[in-house]
């Protein structure tokens, strides 16, 4: 007698408590049924493992798609932006470099350490990024300089350079942007833009 439907209902947890207990009692008295249930249970687990591996591969593919923008974008975007700036210089000869900088400069948003409004966390890092968000770049830069002594990573160095730039310490900012140009991290595609822009600051 084909017990497939009963076995699947049991394994899928669809039986009411009373029926589940009765089925388990039947298995104890019926070794063939017990063996069939085990075989199907093991098969389900084996298939689940295969599906899990396929899902891991899906995630890896998603990461590959995210990690680096295509090489030509790394070159194209800054070139287009540079072209716009140079075009502005050519066609709007009355604009000074400072005016050009002012019209293109915008502080990079705080994506590294988002501050949740109402949060009472008074940690050093929170205070630093609160200052950054408020445009207090001098305070942010001093804080990040200290923080980098304990936690040195490209993301923090990028925000340190941005804070220096916001505080008009262009030379120090440019020096860090230059170091970061070949680093592989989340915001690496933005380094060249700010580096080029600083030249007009």
């Amino acid at each position, binding site marked *: 007698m084909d017990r497939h439907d009963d076995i699947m209902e049991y394994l899928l947890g669809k039986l009411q408590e009373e029926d589940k207990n009765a089925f388990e009692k039947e298995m104890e008295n019926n070794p063939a049924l017990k063996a069939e249930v085990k075989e199907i249970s*093991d*098969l389900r687990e084996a298939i689940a493992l295969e*599906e899990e591996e396929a*899902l891991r591969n899906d995630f890896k593919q998603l990461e590959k798609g*995210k990690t680096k923008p295509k090489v030509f974008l790394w070159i194209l975007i800054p070139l287009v932006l540079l072209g716009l700036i140079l075009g502005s210089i050519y066609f709007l000869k009355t604009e000074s470099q400072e005016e050009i900088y002012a019209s293109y400069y915008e502080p990079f948003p705080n994506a590294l350490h988002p501050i949740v409004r109402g949060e009472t966390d008074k940690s050093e890092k929170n205070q630093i990024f609160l200052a950054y968000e408020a445009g207090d770049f001098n305070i942010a830069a001093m804080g990040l300089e200290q923080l980098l002594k304990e936690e040195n990573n490209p993301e923090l160095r990028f925000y340190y350079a941005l804070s220096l730039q916001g505080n008009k310490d262009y030379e120090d900012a440019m020096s860090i942007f230059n170091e970061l140009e070949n680093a592989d991290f989340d915001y690496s595609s933005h380094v060249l833009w700010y580096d080029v822009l600083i030249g007009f600051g």
Partner: protein
Amino acid sequence: MGNMDLELEDRLRGKDREAFKEVYISYREEFLAFGRKYGVSRNELLDIYQEANIALYRNFAVKGKKLESGTVKTYLFGIGKFKIFDLLKERKRFKQADAVPEIPQIPDYHPEPSVEVRLLRKHFGSLGESCKKILKMFYYRGLAIAEIVEQGNYKDANTVKAQKSRCLKKLRESIKSRTGKNG
């Protein structure tokens, strides 16, 4: 919990791989930003995030998890948070003076597969796609024969039953021939 979240839960329990990918993409950046607060590197956070999503799959798709409170997102972040704290404890990052964060309840974890399961996994993997497809529909997704006929575009119920028997026999024979076991 809104209707959209209930719908998402159904899709996850229904083993919809696209749903798992959508969840992965939707909460990735937020999780990475969240994890950075604890000084964990980006690569480690990505590993943790992927493992948390695999745990989500095990609990919803394999075990049929139903959330009694919270959303898929809070459940996923709960798993991820636990893994972050586990990592930090290993590295003894929490000093006495620091406030110890509340450790969320440990979600069920998957035990190591048995020898039999590993063997089945290996031989199942070497079956043809048509056998894998029908055995998945029967035993993994638990579909009724009528559903399998419709979704698999088979001729009729008898074709499905015959195909299933043939594939199961093939799987058993494959294992027997490798292990030398007699049935």
